[in-house]
């Protein structure tokens, strides 16, 4: 047991719990739109919280543990493909954009499934997206916990199960009770920690080693291929570019990020967040990933790269300082998992339970049920993490790619193209996801030498076009809701809404 490392980590967990308590008290004071408060923090985020919650939710165990590990064994090529997450904050917020933010207020959208349900009005689309979100996000959360806990176990000497349960219980408590606000504010704290950690690691390690010269000499001796392209990672140009699809363009539809595009206060907040986000992400990405190479100085022959950076930090730094830095990967993991728990909980309560089981669920009961659902999801993830799967980064990439293929075309095309309809969306989801799985698992030729997400998305897009032209166009009401002004929507509701009883609008019945 290394207490000098453990104590800063305990202090860090204490701060997280305090944020949870504070958010829970804020939440208790709100009596109107409690569900919106729980899942979106009342759409009130300013730029500072917005940018950090977005980046912290996007940066995960991959950025700190899996990533440096891959660079350790695969070289600079892995930094090259990871750099594609730099534009993500800007692209995500501008592509879903103000239209998404305005629509979410007009139509009272809380989850991306709300969007899909009102846009396509078809249970197949709703269920495909809900089930996909629950399965893929749970799959994604498990290796996050496992990876983080393994590292902590190695550096602190505390038992795996004890660590996992403590660490997960803290996430569970503040997320279940504090809701989105606790999630966003703890993300901000965690994001700052990552940013500072990214800078400190550079300075400390390079100062200790005396610049990159010695690193380069060591790497040249050990494995000069780490400097080259395609290198051990096999990065051909088409492979490199297809990473940009996954980490840059399509990242925005991941449900835990897309809800952040509904949650900001005004145009000013989103403008500032978009302007600053890429710079912060550049520092975080370069800071930690490049250290995978530096680690060769201290750890010449590790079997699995995941421990390269943590062990190096232990060698170079006094325990207390290392303990503070280890809070950064912990923060990356917690900030991703907390937002995912909330998304999965929202899908279960709002998109499945309220829509198909109990349409008259009250706002108050919905918010309360949210707490229970979040806690349950967290407990299931812990259960899975106690029996950990084998390799970290590939599982993560598989889950993320699968969700992106499933959701990108229906969301983005549905947002901007009027002709897009339910048949197109359903075909795109089923066809794209099937192609992705088949290409990934059985027929690698289907990927054309790229990440499977590239051809799968092309297939999804083609099927969306096909279905949209074959099937009937969206109903007039849908067009008014998604393209009309508020006055047009109100007029339509006044004439047809009274007769139809608002039954088409699941989000508004109260």
């Amino acid at each position: 047991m290394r207490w000098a490392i453990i104590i800063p980590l305990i202090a860090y967990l204490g701060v997280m719990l305090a944020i949870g308590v504070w958010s829970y008290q804020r939440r208790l004071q709100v009596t109107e739109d409690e569900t919106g408060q729980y899942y979106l923090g009342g759409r009130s985020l300013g730029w500072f919280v917005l940018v950090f919650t977005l980046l912290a939710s996007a940066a995960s165990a991959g950025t700190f543990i899996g990533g440096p590990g891959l660079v350790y064994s695969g070289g600079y090529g892995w930094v090259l493909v990871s750099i594609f997450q730099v534009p993500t904050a800007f692209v995500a917020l501008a592509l879903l954009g103000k239209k998404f933010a305005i629509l979410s207020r007009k139509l009272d959208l809380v989850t991306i499934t709300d969007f899909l349900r009102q846009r396509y009005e078809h249970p197949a689309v709703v269920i495909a997206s809900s089930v996909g979100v629950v399965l893929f996000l749970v799959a994604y959360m498990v290796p996050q916990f496992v990876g983080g806990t393994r590292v902590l176990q190695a550096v602190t000497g505390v038992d795996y199960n004890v660590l996992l349960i403590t660490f997960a219980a803290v996430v569970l408590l503040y997320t279940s009770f504090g809701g989105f606000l606790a999630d966003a504010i703890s993300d901000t704290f965690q994001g700052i920690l990552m940013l500072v950690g990214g800078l400190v690691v550079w300075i400390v390690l390079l100062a200790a080693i005396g610049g990159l010269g010695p690193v380069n000499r060591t790497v040249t001796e050990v494995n000069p291929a780490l400097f080259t392209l395609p290198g051990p990672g096999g990065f051909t140009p088409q492979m490199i570019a297809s990473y940009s699809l996954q980490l840059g363009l399509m990242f925005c539809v991941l449900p835990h990020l897309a809800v952040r595009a509904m949650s900001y206060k005004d145009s000013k907040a989103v403008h500032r967040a978009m302007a600053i986000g890429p710079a912060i992400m550049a520092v975080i990405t370069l800071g930690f990933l490049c250290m995978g190479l530096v680690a060769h100085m201290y750890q010449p022959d590790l079997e699995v790269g995941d421990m390269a950076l943590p062990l190096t930090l232990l060698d170079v730094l006094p325990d207390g300082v290392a303990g503070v830095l280890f809070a950064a990967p912990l923060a990356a993991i917690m900030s991703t998992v907390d937002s995912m728990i909330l998304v999965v909980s929202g899908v279960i309560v709002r998109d499945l339970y309220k829509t198909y089981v109990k349409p008259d669920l009250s706002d108050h009961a919905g918010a309360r049920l949210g707490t229970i659902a979040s806690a349950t999801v967290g407990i299931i993830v812990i259960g899975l993490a106690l029996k950990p799967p084998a390799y970290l980064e590939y599982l993560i990439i598989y889950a993320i790619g699968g969700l992106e293929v499933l959701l990108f075309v229906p969301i983005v095309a549905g947002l901007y193209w009027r002709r897009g309809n339910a048949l197109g969306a359903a075909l795109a989801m089923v066809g794209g996801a099937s192609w992705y799985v088949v290409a990934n698992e059985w027929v690698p030729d289907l990927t054309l030498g790229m990440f499977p997400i590239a051809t799968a998305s092309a297939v999804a897009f083609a099927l969306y076009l096909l279905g949209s032209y074959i099937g009937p166009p969206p109903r007039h009401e849908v067009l008014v809701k998604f393209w009309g002004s508020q006055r047009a929507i109100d007029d339509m509701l006044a004439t047809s809404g009274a007769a139809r009883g608002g039954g088409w609008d699941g989000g508004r019945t109260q």
Partner: protein
Amino acid sequence: MSIATRRDDDVDFEEDPRYEQANREARWAIGYWLAFTVVVTGLAWWLGYDKPADELSFVLGFPAWFFWSVLVTSLVFAAIPAWIIRRHFKDVPLTKDGRHVPTPEGRQ
């Protein structure tokens, strides 16, 4: 891509004027992403692809292809959104009816 605004349906309702601007901003996002992807991939390919390790040149301790395509490009591109936003993005109210002063709590 999917961003093209089509008008194949005859429109008989008042459209929300803010969406026009939102479409434009979404196109900027795609353009920016495309430019970043092409520059990073292109520079890496041009400067470093298929070069054996002993032929690589180094800049400030990094392989030259990495220095230019990753470090320099990402820092330059990290600064570009601020310019795009100042020149081409508009500050529009996000309230339901597009009025600047939201009703208390944003809803009735």
